């Protein structure tokens, strides 16, 4: 890609193609560690024990590309983090050449002596390793490239007295673990909503209220989130849900964020590429007080006359104009909430749903989805019982989705042995408009009712027996 192309793509606020300056990216390490990094021109990114690299070295590559630190904070692209190069020629054992990655040949040479089973393994802990921590530190100090990491791994294997007693599978596993620890590799990824969520799950799970990627996906689908929609949202994850919605909407439509502090916490948005302009166009915020008591909260702004304005001191005038603008914004957002007819209600919150739903439901358009998230099934359970009496939400269902990740190695496919327990639940239903009267359900006892020709009450109207 020419540098012109890079520039034109990179300046787009929806760039998910090319690594460019002035954006946040997710840096993924072989240890499965994650880092959110802002790419500054002339910047250097420090990856701790994995070394550091100059930002300029990764610019222009595609988002998702993997790299290896060679030396002097320089990088070279590699196919992926756990790459094993295939075509490395016979000179693979050249230890002076720090750039030689592990080759298949080398692997095979390690693995020629393996055991069929673990019969001869005796666990004596770290004593089996001849190489001491001091030796490793010494080696580490001798350079900052991936080649050093490789030397360490080779020395560890030759210093491992029991290595040939391991099965080939466990030898490979050992090698992979050591690679994760010592190779100076990383990939640079686009910060999609899933990536951002993955980062927070790793760093701060309570912040995202235990929500998993699969549950987030379910919310987006059942919420019917798409470009051009006009949504009402409660987001107590600091904006991760909003981030996911904006990703789906790409500048089209709007989200009204209902929050319980004076100001909404949408700090996750700083990792997005959206301009201030796009954000202020798409995102409106309203607090509960403004939502529930619009009459008290609406600002009666007294406009001064042109002549009065002309007589004002410049500082006073600026203040007046700021306040006028602010009052206009608050009033228009209150107006927006009052109009209602939102295309979905999404709630990812710890508030009591039975107390807030009666306030919110009238604002949601007919046949629009209601999607409520909770980390606790019990809270949704009480909400569903509440809704079965309320009748304004059709067929509410408590849904759970769990991804089961597999070790995906040919010949050795199996589900991961452990995973972190989290994910949450959603309650999904459709906002409907029941008739006040004149409806008789068909169901148990209906023929009797029909014979008696009794008036149907609203309770009968939506009898769940149908």
């Amino acid at each position, binding site marked *: 890609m020419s540098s012109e192309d890079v520039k034109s*793509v990179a300046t787009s606020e*929806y760039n*998910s*193609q090319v690594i460019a300056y002035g954006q946040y990216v997710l840096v993924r390490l072989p240890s499965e560690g994650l880092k959110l990094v802002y790419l500054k021109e002339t910047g250097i990114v420090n990856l701790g024990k994995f070394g550091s690299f100059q930002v300029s070295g990764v610019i222009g590559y*595609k988002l*998702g590309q993997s790299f290896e630190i060679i030396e002097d904070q320089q990088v070279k692209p590699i*196919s*992926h983090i756990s790459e094993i190069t295939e075509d490395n020629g016979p000179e693979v054992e050249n230890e002076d050449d720090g750039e030689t990655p592990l080759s298949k040949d080398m692997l095979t040479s390690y693995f020629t002596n393996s055991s069929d089973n673990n019969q001869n393994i005796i666990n004596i802990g770290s004593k089996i390793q001849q190489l001491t921590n001091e030796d490793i530190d010494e080696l580490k100090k001798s350079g900052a490239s991936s080649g050093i990491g490789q030397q360490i791994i080779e020395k560890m294997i030759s210093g491992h007295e029991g290595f040939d007693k391991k099965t080939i599978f466990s030898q490979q596993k050992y090698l992979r673990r050591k690679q994760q620890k010592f190779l100076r590799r990383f990939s640079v990824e*686009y910060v*999609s*909503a899933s990536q951002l969520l993955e980062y927070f799950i790793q760093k701060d799970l309570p912040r995202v209220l235990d929500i998993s990627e699969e549950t*987030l*996906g*379910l919310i*987006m*689908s*059942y919420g*019917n989130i*798409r*470009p*051009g929609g006009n949504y009402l949202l409660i987001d107590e994850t600091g904006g991760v849900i909003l981030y996911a919605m904006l*990703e789906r909407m*790409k*500048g*089209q439509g709007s989200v009204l964020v209902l929050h319980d502090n004076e100001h909404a916490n949408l700090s996750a948005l700083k990792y997005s590429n959206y301009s201030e302009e796009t954000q202020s166009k798409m995102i409106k915020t309203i607090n509960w007080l403004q939502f529930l008591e619009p009459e008290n909260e609406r600002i009666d702004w007294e406009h001064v006359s042109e002549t009065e304005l002309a007589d004002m001191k410049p500082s006073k005038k600026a203040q007046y104009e700021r306040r006028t603008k602010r009052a206009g914004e608050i009033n228009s957002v209150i107006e927006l909430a009052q109009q209602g007819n939102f*295309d979905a209600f999404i709630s990812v919150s710890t508030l009591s749903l039975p107390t807030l739903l009666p306030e919110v439901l009238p604002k949601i*358009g*007919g046949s*629009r*989805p209601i999607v409520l998230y909770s980390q606790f*099934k*019990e809270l949704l*359970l009480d909400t569903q*019982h509440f809704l079965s009496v309320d009748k304004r939400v059709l067929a*509410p269902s*408590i*849904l*759970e*989705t769990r*991804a*089961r*990740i*597999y070790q*995906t190695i*040919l*010949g050795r*496919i199996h*589900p991961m042995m452990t995973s972190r327990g989290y994910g949450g639940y959603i309650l999904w239903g*459709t*906002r*409907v*408009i029941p*008739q006040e009267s004149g*409806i*008789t359900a068909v169901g148990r006892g*209906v023929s009797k009712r*029909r014979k008696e020709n009794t008036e149907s009450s609203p309770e009968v*109207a*939506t009898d769940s027996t*149908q």
Partner: protein
Amino acid sequence: MSFYKYKDYIEEGDLVLAFISRQTIKPLTVKKGEQLNTRYGHFQHDRMIGMKYGEQMGGARGYGFIYLLHPTPELWSISLPHRTQIVYTPDSSYIMQRLNVTSGTRVIEAGTGSGSFTHAFARTVGPEGRVFSYEFHEPRYLEAKKEFVEHELQNTLITHRDVCNDGFEINNIPEEFSQDGLINGDVIFLDLPAPWTAIEHLDKVISKKNRVGICCFSPCIEQVDKTIKALQDNGWINIQMTEIAGRRWEARKDMVKDLKDVVKRLKDIQSRKSQGIENRRSIKVAGEKRDFEEVDNDSEEDQLKGKGFNPFGKGTRIKEGDEIYDWRNVTKIETEIKTHTSYLTFAYFIPSDN
């Protein structure tokens, strides 16, 4: 444009999903003079026109009701006519989330099947995005094509093709679908019996501008094995297989049964028994009738629960949640669960610049 935008009032020609029960949602196109007949009543289309989406509608003869719902891909996946096994929302939503399908994404899908996932893709990629869907079974292709026209999925192009043998390339791509004469797919979804035979054809139709994501959807582990091999051989990276388990929980009520009440009831039975014996004895001796008060001194509530002290309503028919009893809220898993849908094998491809 019903799958791209909500409208508030029903007009003639609209697609309406008639919600009859949780199990039955019937799609219909509103047409004057027609009528929806169900075992829960009859519903004239004429009366639907002008009603609000989401409104409850009573039956023509004064009984039964339906709800008139606006179509969404998720409701459609519950109501649609099955031509094949379909991809359900827990799987489809995860695939779209994980592969970052958003407004503007160009999706390649093979095969179309019942078109359920196609609707979800079409909605999510929106007017800016494109869906290229392939179906090799001709009758299914024709039905899906007709359906996509009726549902106005303008961003979706369906092609009759066996992609495993003939690849994905399209001659003379319609201008509104082409990107420099190419398909340039960003996200690939393969729901085929042998996805590994289609993978080698992908390099001609995937985007060269950005990382491309793929999901292969196969029910059997042997298929996964072959798919992984083909992905590796064709330069796909970060291969990972995942399974999704979707569950629905029912909100129920469970009666709270205090052990003290069990004991109290046993004592009550005992005392009634002995009183009965006493009474019979006294009748024999005195031959007098008893006072009314003596016979039934239970409270009104206890009477509703059956004879004597019967705190849990034993022997009577109890409605779950009946207010005269004590209940706690509980969840119960749905009676039939989808234990396995398919294995989802994900991978990425990073096109090189030359």
